[in-house]
């Protein structure tokens, strides 16, 4: 079996000296890192630390004030996101990337059926056979543990946990290579979170996905990610293997974060 870590000797995404200023406020300062195929990176820190701003720059939704983000396109060439044409950007957003929002209502169309929510991404990449689209949507609902009898119901009739799983199915159906997740378990009950985390962990490893997960929850980082970056005041203050950073935190702020969790 080919392994993502071996196949991925070339970086998938490279961030170089990324900064973002809002007037005199520096939301992100001089952030650099490399993400390899199949690697899951967690960005942790409290509200206002710059995590979401960073995620938006990495996913080409926000232009950095300085620095750049490069991404290896499927042809193997590493390209500056800023230099991409409209068609290439669309390809990334519709196919090669996924984006899981904290609030599923932002990532789903709440009034159309679950099947259509999943099928829409396939139609956007040129699928046009109704039966095949429906079969694929149905098998994805099963994969995210949604009863296929609910395929024609709109997500506004779904519970919070089901909506989040539907959002994940919608994102993964086009077989992206990179998924951005912004607080994917935020706002869910603890029991629902555990199920969702387990599901995401399995999907990420089965599909050999690379992912960048923004979370303030260290348990999410521990369960999902290989590496972690700790942010404070717009800067990365500590980075390393997830278990190194969480079991042997060096920076005062990381020690505070880690010591603030209740023991399991």
């Amino acid at each position, binding site marked *: 079996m080919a392994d993502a870590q071996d196949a991925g000797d070339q970086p998938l995404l490279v961030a170089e000296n990324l900064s973002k200023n809002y007037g005199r406020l520096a939301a992100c300062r001089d952030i650099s890192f490399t993400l390899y195929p199949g690697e899951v990176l967690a960005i942790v820190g409290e509200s206002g630390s710059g995590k979401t701003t960073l995620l938006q720059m990495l996913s080409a939704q926000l232009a950095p004030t300085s620095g750049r983000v490069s991404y290896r396109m499927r042809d193997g060439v590493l390209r500056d996101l800023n230099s991409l044409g409209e068609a290439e950007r669309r390809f990334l957003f519709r196919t090669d990337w996924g984006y899981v929002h904290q609030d599923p209502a932002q990532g789903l169309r709440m009034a159309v059926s679950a099947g259509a929510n999943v099928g829409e991404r396939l139609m956007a990449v040129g699928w046009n056979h109704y039966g095949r689209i429906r079969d694929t949507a149905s098998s994805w609902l099963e994969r995210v543990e949604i009863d296929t009898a609910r395929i024609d119901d709109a997500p506004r009739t779904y519970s919070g946990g089901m909506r989040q799983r539907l959002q994940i199915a919608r994102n993964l159906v086009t077989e992206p290579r990179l998924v951005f997740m912004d607080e994917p378990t935020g706002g869910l009950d603890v029991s629902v979170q555990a199920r969702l985390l387990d599901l995401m962990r399995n999907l990420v490893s089965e599909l050999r996905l690379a992912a960048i997960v923004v979370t303030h929850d260290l348990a999410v980082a521990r369960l999902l990610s290989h590496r972690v970056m700790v942010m404070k005041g717009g800067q990365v203050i500590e980075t390393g293997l997830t278990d190194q950073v969480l*079991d042997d935190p060096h920076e*005062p702020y990381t*020690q505070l974060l880690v010591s603030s969790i209740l023991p399991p």
Partner: protein
Amino acid sequence: MPAMIKIVNAEKSFTMHLQGGVRLPVVRGVNFEVNAGECVVLSGPSGAGKSSILKMIFGNYRCDGGRIGIRHDGALLDLAKAEPRDVLRVRRDTIGYVSQFLRAVPRVPTLDVVAEPLIVTGAPRERAREQAGNLLRTLNIPERLWTLPPSTFSGGEQQRVNIARGFISDLPILLLDEPTASLDARNREVVVGLIDDKKRAGVAMVAIVHDDEVRRLIADSVVDVTSFAAAA
């Protein structure tokens, strides 16, 4: 024969920023080697740094100085300075770690918890499960429990599940942190037998064991950790 583990002058301390920056020295001048087929037991009283050394070898604790040489892919790699992705490769292909406690993922059945390390290295799922079943049987975990997640098991049962998970793969280095701590005599014997099998297969092991009898049975050499005491 080249050493599988070669530790040179490794050093570790903790700085507790929340306690006014108190610096806690743990170990200093750690030097020892482990060869293939050999089990080195770390000895010393609690708090001497035995578990810390094991975690440094696994790349879980970062060293302040020195080298943690690990034979990986035919060459000695310094884990103290390795990139995160290299540490992950070493853990996937070279070093296994059996801790005292099982860190189980909710909802995953015992059989899959045990089979997982084989599956991630590419073994077919069915064969991995069969092997997992054999180990669980050897460790006296009744078959009716295999489909349940281990989170509700007793301490001793969880530890045996953890041992099965740690021993299933064919990794050339195994780190054992009190693998027999809460086991009864019969299961202690089983674990001693599993360690013997690993030795015959050429696995290099570093172990912490408090039970004198078990230590006598498995240790090829003993490293006294108090000699690495790092006086402040």
